[in-house]
């Protein structure tokens, strides 16, 4: 059977824990497990890489795409969300996602690990790394996921609702779905394959993004008077950091420094490269001018799409993933903007939502050894696995849509989401944060 990455590790760990012991006795209760320093070293490194994806990677990627008068507000969104998510993760969200939920465990973890109760420096879990290291690694995922959604609402949402929505979303959307898939919940039980977050990260964020964008309304002048990104270089810097950091995201999800991590890195990298070249080629053919914004958008599409599959497919699978991702997300961007006319401003749904879901569904084929994959889950056939993946997708999408809808409505009842027309004209940097991006 293929090595199943984080999902499997956690299910095993969670199961053992449920049966055997109170949390604070955990380290002793798993006598076979001894610390693997090498794996720990790699996961510590991967944690730094994934934090780097949000701060400053994603912030710059998004910041360069907006107009100069809103650049700081976007950086601020990413930064403040990172801080807020970190505190919430420590307080309760980690426990909800990875704790023991008792009778509710199929749906949600309990509060037993709130504030890391019972987790000492000697606690090991998920195989052979310290649980505190695993906690940190997972925290960086909980940071980037709500931050991805920032791309849906820049240039017009006020700052207070940004924080309220993000915080609630982390607790009510991210934590449960994370538990279902990686925390030993019902999707894990069905054998869903999601190596590094196609459902947990990209589908949740992408789907919620389009819901928020729809409810919030478009920016002034959308879609005819769009302005080009104020700083494509800033966007490229962010994109490059995302690429590098994604090594930690995907190869780190192997939770081990071995050939599996290496292969995850290879397919991640390959998909990014192939998707970039695909997007570039489409633009070249269509407009005669392949753009920098285009190639890096393709890169993100390639990375988001391979994420759920990165521990399961082989190099050829990585190539196919990249080509499909580049083409599908290219098409989705136009579709959302011009057919649905939704101002999901930085294309979070088209890139992360579409990419993540595509990656989840395709994995049932490309994980199969016949297509160069490393193998499906035990006792699975392509068809059966596809069914499981589909169930996971539908459930994740439905939950994300409904809960995000409720959150947005509730927050809007307390604080109006939308900046005034004048604040929007002046730019959020000045109106919300009292600063200007460029004082040259």
């Amino acid at each position: 059977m293929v090595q199943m990455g984080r999902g499997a590790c956690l299910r095993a760990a969670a199961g053992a824990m449920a049966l055997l012991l109170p949390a604070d006795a955990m380290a002793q209760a798993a006598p076979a497990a001894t610390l693997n320093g090498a794996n720990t070293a790699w996961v510590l490194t991967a944690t730094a890489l994934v934090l780097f994806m949000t701060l400053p990677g994603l912030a710059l990627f998004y910041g360069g795409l907006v107009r100069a008068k809103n650049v700081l507000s976007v950086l601020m969104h990413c930064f403040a969300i990172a801080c807020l998510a970190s505190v919430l993760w420590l307080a309760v969200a980690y426990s909800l996602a990875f704790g023991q939920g008792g009778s509710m465990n199929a749906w949600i973890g309990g509060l037993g690990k709130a504030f890391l109760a019972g987790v000492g420096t000697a606690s090991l879990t998920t195989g052979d790394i310290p649980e505190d290291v695993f906690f940190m690694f997972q925290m960086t995922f909980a940071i980037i996921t709500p931050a991805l959604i920032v791309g849906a609402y820049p240039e017009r949402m006020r700052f207070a609702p940004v924080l309220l929505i993000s915080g609630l979303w982390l607790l009510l959307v991210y934590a449960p779905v994370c538990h279902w898939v990686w925390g030993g919940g019902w999707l894990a039980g069905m054998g869903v394959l999601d190596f590094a977050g196609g459902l947990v990260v990209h589908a949740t964020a992408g789907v919620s993004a389009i819901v928020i964008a729809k409810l919030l309304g478009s920016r002034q002048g959308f879609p005819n008077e769009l302005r080009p990104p104020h700083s494509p270089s800033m966007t490229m810097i962010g994109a490059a950091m995302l690429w590098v950091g994604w090594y930690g995201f995907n190869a780190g999800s192997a939770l081990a420094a071995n050939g599996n991590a290496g292969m995850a890195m290879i397919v991640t990298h390959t998909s990014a490269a192939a998707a970039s070249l695909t997007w570039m080629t489409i633009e070249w053919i269509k407009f005669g001018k392949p753009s920098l914004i285009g190639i890096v958008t393709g890169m993100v599409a390639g990375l988001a799409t391979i994420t759920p599959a990165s521990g399961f497919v082989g190099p050829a699978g990585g190539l196919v993933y990249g080509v499909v991702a580049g083409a599908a997300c290219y098409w989705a961007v136009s579709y959302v903007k011009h057919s649905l006319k939704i101002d999901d401003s930085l294309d979070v749904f088209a890139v992360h939502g579409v990419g993540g879901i595509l990656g989840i569904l395709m994995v049932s084929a490309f994980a199969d050894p016949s297509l160069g994959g490393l193998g499906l889950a035990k006792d699975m056939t392509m068809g059966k696995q596809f069914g499981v993946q589909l169930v996971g997708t539908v459930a994740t999408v439905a939950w994300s849509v409904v809960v995000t809808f409720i959150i947005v409505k509730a927050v809007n009842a307390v604080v109006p989401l939308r900046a005034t027309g004048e604040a929007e004209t002046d730019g959020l940097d000045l109106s919300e944060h009292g600063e200007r991006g460029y004082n040259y």
Partner: protein
Amino acid sequence: MKLVVAIIKPFKLEDVRTALGAVGVEGLTVSEVKGYGRQKGQTEVYRGAEYAVSYVPKVKLEVAVDDALADRVVEAIRDTANTGRIGDGKIFVFDVEHAVRIRTGETGTDAL
């Protein structure tokens, strides 16, 4: 005294300055502007959508000169900034009522 104002293509700036030096101009002031006219801006593409940029970067030159020199200055600019393609720009001449050199307080032509 006259103020000759020229809107020209940026890459012609150095040539024009040299030509003005040749006719005796010793100082001038330059600023970056964006022009709208017959010449259309380039097309930019952003994630699959193409859109036209209406404005073209231009350079604006302001040269204050003695009345006697004004015509030669206009001529020098016209001849050097010319590429024969649309968007080469315009020259406008204004009357200056009064000029002062801040450092010395000199006025009129002495101020230049």
